[in-house]
Every structure is written in structure tokens, then in C-alpha cells.
């Protein structure tokens, strides 16, 4: 069981670090197009940021912050974005996941971006969820 750390150094440091970790995670998701990275990698970094918070502030507080329902909503929302983009292509008259039909500039590139964001959300939520489940099981 992980409890809140009493050390002020740890709590302050994690508080300072977390925004940067999350920013980096977002960067990795967004720049999956032109540099190594993408939804999975970025999602894991985002999730790791939250897990770091949970470790230093104790599981009880973390449990309050990320309720089970919220995590479930997030993780299914991520896949839903992915599958929904595919379905949108279907409704617009092309094959499933054929981004070429989307009504935006450079549709394939943007379609991929949307997909990556969806993946990122799911991976983040699932990482937190597995961590939380493993910890809180008695």
C-alpha cells in the first residue's frame, strides 16, 4: 500500500515535474508525424506522469482523483474516437478507415492525428486503470 509521503522534497518535486512530463507526453503524441513517437508512446508518458503523482501523494488521494467511472469513460472514449473516425469515413462513402474522404485539408495526415490522440487517451487511461486496480485490490 502506498501512502502519502511525508517528505516535502518529494511532494514539491513531483508537483514541479508532473506538468513537464505531461507536456512532453503531449509533444510526443502530436509530433508522432515527423519524429519518433505517437499515440502509444505519448500515452504511456502521460500515464506515467499520473502514476508518479499517485505514488508520491498516496493511493487514497489518487483514488479520489481518478474515479473508476471516469477512467472507464476515458478509456472507451479513446477507442471510440478511433473507431468513430473510421465510421465517419464509412458514412461519407469510402471504405472503413479510409481517411482520404474526410472533408479537411490534408485529410490523411489529420485523420492520423485524430487517431493518435484517441490512442493516447486510451493508453493513458488504461495505464492508470491497471495501476489503480493492482494497488487497490485487497
Amino acid at each position: 500500500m502506498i501512502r502519502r509521503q511525508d517528505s516535502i522534497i518529494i511532494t514539491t518535486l513531483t508537483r514541479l515535474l508532473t506538468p513537464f512530463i505531461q507536456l512532453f507526453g503531449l509533444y510526443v503524441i502530436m509530433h508522432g508525424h515527423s519524429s519518433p513517437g505517437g499515440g502509444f508512446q505519448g500515452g504511456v508518458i502521460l500515464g506515467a506522469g499520473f502514476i508518479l503523482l499517485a505514488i508520491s501523494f498516496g493511493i487514497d488521494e489518487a483514488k479520489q482523483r481518478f474515479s473508476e467511472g471516469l477512467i472507464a469513460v476515458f478509456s472507451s472514449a479513446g477507442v471510440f474516437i478511433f473507431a468513430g473516425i473510421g465510421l465517419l469515413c464509412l458514412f461519407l462513402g469510402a471504405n472503413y478507415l479510409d481517411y482520404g474522404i474526410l472533408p479537411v485539408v490534408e485529410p490523411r495526415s489529420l485523420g492520423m492525428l485524430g487517431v493518435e490522440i484517441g490512442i493516447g487517451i486510451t493508453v493513458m487511461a488504461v495505464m492508470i486503470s491497471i495501476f489503480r486496480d493492482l494497488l487497490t485490490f485487497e
Partner: protein
Amino acid sequence: MILTLATGLFLIYGAMDMPKWGDPESPASVNVSPRYIEKAFEETAVPNMVTAVLADYRGYDTLGETTVIFAAGICCLLILKRRKKEEAT
């Protein structure tokens, strides 16, 4: 142990016939993938070919993979959710 060794020997037996490491002429690099390398940027406007193949050419695999992650999350939830009745025993 014997089974493991047998498996390993079988694998090595197969590996003898494989193309050399780093050979640009190996079938794997000649047959399908050149199209990804040569056309991906043109067709999708994404410079990272891995992303292009991942999210577009083989996008459906990636959907499956995201589903796997999602499944893992829900499975953990399902397996570990507290059961009052059983915990008592």
C-alpha cells in the same frame, strides 16, 4: 528442457536458410515495403513512415491493438473488482 532444446534446434535449422542480417536485397525488404518508403510521404503527407504505415496503411491493425489495450484495462477491472462474498472465505 529437452522440449526447449528441440524447439531451439528446429528454429536454428530454419534460420540457416534466412537472408543475411542487414541485407538490402532480402525478400522482406524487396517485396512489399518499398512502396511504404517511396510513396508514404507522397500519399499521406506524413514524414514518419512508421506512423504512416501504423495509422494508415495498416490502420486496422492499430485499431485492433488499441482494442487490446482497452480489453486489458477492462479485464483487470473485471478480475480484480472486490467481491465481498468470496473475500470472506
